[in-house]
C-alpha cells in the first residue's frame, strides 16, 4: 500500500529542488545587477537596469502582489538566502496533485494538501546552504500528518478503560468486508484477553446469517442472530443484554451493507444507533475505493456518528489514498487495516509511521 505515492513524493521533492535551483541560478546574475544598482543610488537607477532587475527573476507579467515582495527578496539576497516563489512550485505541485489522485486521494482532499504545502513553502526563505529538499520534506510531512493524523486514539487502551460490555457497531456499504472485519477483531480482542459476542444485525442479505455463523463457529465465539428480515436494532440490543448477563467484554454488532443513497436504510442505521447507543461505531470501507470514499464516509458519519474507520483489502495493491480521504473528511482516525483473508490479517494503523514510511525517513 502507498508504494506508488511514495515514489511520487520522492520525485516531488527533487522537482522542487531542481526548479528552485534553476530559478536560483537564473536569478543570481540579475540579482547582482539589481543589488549593485540599488547600492549605487536610492531611486535614480537608470530605467534599463531597473526593468531588468524586476523582470528577469520571475515572469515578466507576474504580479508583485502574490509573489514575495522585492524588498523581501533583496533582504534574502543580502542574508545569503533565496526565496521560494509560487512559480518554482507550480509544476512540481501539479505533479504532486496528479500523484495524489493516482493514489486515490479524493480531489478536494488533494487540493487541501496542496494548499497547505503551498502556503508553507511559498515565501519561505531558505538559506543557500540548507537544501530545498529538507524544506520540502518538512512541508510535506506537516501537510500529510495534518490530514491523516486526526484524533488518533489507542484502540486497545480505549477498550481497556471502557466499562464492560463495550459495544462496537460496524457500518459501511455493501461488500466492503464488515463481517470479515468483525471476525478478525473478535480474534484480535480474544488475543488480548477479552471475550466477545457477535450480533448479526444484517438481517437482510442472502447468506448473511450463515456467513457470520461459520465465523462464530471457527472462532468459538457466541453469536446472537435472529431470523432473516428481523429488526437489526433488536438483534444488536439482544447482543448487549446477553453480554451483560454473561459477563462478556465486547459486543461486535454487524449491520447490513447499505448504500448511503438509500434514505430508508440510512434511517434504519440511525435507529440502530439510537436504540443500541454503541460505545464505538466503526466505519468500514475498502482501501481500493476511489473518490467516492469521501462521500460515503461523510454520509455514514452523519447518520450514525463514527469514532473511527477500518480499511479493508489493503493487500490488493491498493493505492491507499482512501485512508487519507476518509480521515480528512470525517476528522476521525483510521484504526485498522485489513490485509488478507485470514483471521490474523488485521493491523493497527499508525499515521506517524505511515508518513515516515512515505517520506522514506
Amino acid at each position, binding site marked *: 500500500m502507498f508504494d506508488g505515492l511514495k515514489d511520487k513524493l520522492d520525485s516531488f521533492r527533487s522537482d522542487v529542488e531542481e526548479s528552485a535551483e534553476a530559478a536560483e541560478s537564473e536569478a543570481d546574475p540579475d540579482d547582482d545587477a539589481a543589488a549593485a544598482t540599488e547600492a549605487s543610488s536610492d531611486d535614480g537607477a537608470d530605467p534599463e537596469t531597473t526593468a531588468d532587475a524586476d523582470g528577469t527573476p520571475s515572469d515578466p507579467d507576474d504580479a508583485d502582489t502574490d509573489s514575495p515582495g522585492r524588498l523581501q527578496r533583496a533582504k534574502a539576497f543580502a542574508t545569503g538566502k533565496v526565496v521560494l516563489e509560487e512559480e518554482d512550485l507550480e509544476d512540481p505541485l501539479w505533479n504532486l496533485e496528479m500523484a495524489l489522485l493516482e493514489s486515490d486521494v479524493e480531489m478536494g482532499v488533494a487540493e487541501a494538501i496542496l494548499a497547505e504545502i503551498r502556503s508553507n513553502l511559498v515565501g519561505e526563505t531558505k538559506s543557500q546552504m540548507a537544501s530545498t529538499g529538507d524544506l520540502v520534506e518538512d512541508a510535506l510531512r506537516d501537510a500529510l500528518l495534518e490530514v491523516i493524523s486526526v484524533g488518533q486514539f489507542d484502540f486497545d487502551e480505549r477498550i481497556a478503560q471502557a466499562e464492560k460490555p463495550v459495544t462496537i457497531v460496524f457500518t459501511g456499504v455493501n461488500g466492503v468486508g464488515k463481517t470479515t472485519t468483525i471476525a478478525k477483531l473478535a480474534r484480535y480482542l480474544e488475543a488480548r484477553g477479552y471475550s466477545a459476542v457477535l450480533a448479526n444485525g444484517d438481517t437482510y442479505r442472502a447468506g448473511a446469517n450463515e456467513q457470520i455463523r461459520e465465523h462464530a463457529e471457527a472462532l468459538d465465539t457466541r453469536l446472537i442472530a435472529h431470523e432473516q428480515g428481523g429488526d437489526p436494532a433488536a438483534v444488536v440490543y439482544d447482543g448487549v443484554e446477553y453480554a451483560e448477563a454473561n459477563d462478556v467484554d465486547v459486543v461486535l454488532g454487524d449491520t447490513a451493507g447499505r448504500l448511503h443513497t438509500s434514505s430508508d436504510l440510512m434511517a434504519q442505521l440511525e435507529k440502530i444507533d439510537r436504540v443500541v447507543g454503541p460505545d464505538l461505531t466503526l466505519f468500514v470501507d475498502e482501501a481500493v*475505493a476511489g473518490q467516492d470514499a469521501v462521500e460515503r464516509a461523510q454520509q455514514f458519519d452523519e447518520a450514525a456518528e463514527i469514532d473511527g474507520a477500518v480499511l479493508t483489502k489493503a493487500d490488493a495493491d491498493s493505492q491507499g489514498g482512501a485512508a487519507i480521504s476518509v480521515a480528512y473528511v470525517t476528522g476521525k482516525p483510521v484504526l485498522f487495516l485489513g490485509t488478507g483473508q485470514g483471521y490474523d490479517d488485521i493491523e493497527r494503523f499508525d499515521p506517524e509511521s505511515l508518513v515516515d514510511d512515505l517520506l522514506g525517513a
Partner: protein
Amino acid sequence: MVLDDLGSSLRGTLSTLQGKSRLDEDDVEEVVKEIQRSLLQADVDVSLVMDLSDSIETRALEEEPPGGTSARDHVLKIVYEELVDLIGESTELPLEPQTILLAGLQGSGKTTSAAKMAWWFSKKGLRPAVIQTDTFRPGAYDQAEQMADRAEVEFYGDPDSDDPVEIAREGLEATADADVHIVDTAGRHALEDDLIAEIEEIDSVVDPDRSLLVLDAAIGQGAKEQASQFDDSIGIDGVVITKLDGTAKGGGALTAVNETDSSIAFLGTGETVQDIERFEPDGFISRLLGMGDLKQLSERVERAMAETGEEDDDWDPQDIMEGSFTLKDMQKQMEAMNNMGPLDQVMDMIPGMGGGLMDQLPDDAMDVTQDRMRTFDVAMDSMTDEELENPRSIGQERVERIARGAGVDEESIRELLEQHRMMERTIKQFQGMGDGDMQRMMKKLQQGDGGGGMGGMGGMGPFG
C-alpha cells in the same frame, strides 16, 4: 454514473465559448482542464485521462471546424467522439446457449450479479443456471442459493466440497439442460498468485464463451492493475459495474474497459435481482449530450405505473384524461414518480430537462422537492376518502384537523391544495390534445409555465 458531472461542468465551461467562432489556446486549455477534473473525480485512471485530454486538445486546435459550426459545438463534438470511441458498444450477448465466467475482487458483487444476470436471461426466454464455486468465503453457498431462488433459476453448488474446479466441472454436467451457465467464483485480487492460478484452472475446465469482470463502481485507480491482471490470466470480454445506485461514478470501469480492450456488459443498480440493466451506449451518450433518454424514461414510467397500479384496483389513470383530477390521482402520481427512482435521475432523461436546465437549479432543488412530496403524502394519508375525492370540501376547520393528524403545519396543507389546483388547471389545458402537441407541452413545461414548481412535472406521469 461516470460523466454525469462531466456533462454539466462541460456545459458550464463551454458556455464561456458562446459566440466565439475561433478558439485560442487558452480557451482549449481551460476546457481540457475541466474535462480532466471531471474524469479524475469519476475515478478514471490518471494516465488514461491525460491521453484523452491530450488528443482532445490536439484535435480542438488543429481541426478546422466545419463551416457554420461555432467553436463551442466543435469542441463538444470532439469531446463526445473521443468518449464514444473509448466507451464503444455494449458487450455483445447473443441470446443463445452460452457459458459465462465471473471474476472480480472480494465484495465487488459477483454473486448478486450472477443471480441478476440469470434473471435477465430468463426474462429473455432462456433457461439459465448459476454455478457457485466459491468454497472459501463463509456463507457464499447459502447466499448464492438464496439469490438464485429469488431469481427463480436453477442453482448448483456443493457446500461440502473445497475444490472449486471440481464443483465447476460437476456443476456444468448437473445443469446440462440449462441454456446459459453462469459460473460464479470466489473473490480474489490480482496479487494472490495461488488464487489467480485457481481461476485459470476453472477457466480451462469451464471454457467460457465470455468472461466478465465484476467491478464495484467505487473502485479507484487500482482498477487498472486488477483489470490487466485478470485479462492476462483469463481474458476479459466485458465489464459488469455494480452498486451504481450509490454516488460512485464508476470511472474505474472505463479504465478497465480500456485496459482489457473490452466493453461494458451490465450495470447493477440495487439489491434485488431485477436491479440490472444492459448498458446502452446510445442512451448514455444522449443523456450526456443533454438530449435526454426517452427510451429509459418510458421504460421507467411504464414500470412505475404498473407497480403503482397493481396495488390499487379502483384507481384508473384514464379518469384523469376525462377531466376529474382528484387528490387521490395526485397521490398516485407522486407514488409513481417515487417508483421511477430519484427525481434528478428521472429529470435527466427528459429532453430539455436534463443537462443545461438542471445545472441552473440549485443543488438541493431536487431534495427540497422530494421532501415536499413526502410532506404532501403524509398529509394526504390523514385525509378522508371524501376529502381526497373532493378537495374543494376542505375548509379551514378540516385543514386544522388534517394538519394535527398528519403532524405537519397548516401552511403545507394549503400549499398542497394550491398545488392540486394548479395541476388540475394544467391538466385541463392538455386535455384532448393529440400526440403532436407533446412538443408544445414540453415547451410549456420548459418555460416554467406548467403550474409552478413540480406541478407540471406531477402531470407528467400519465403522459410519459
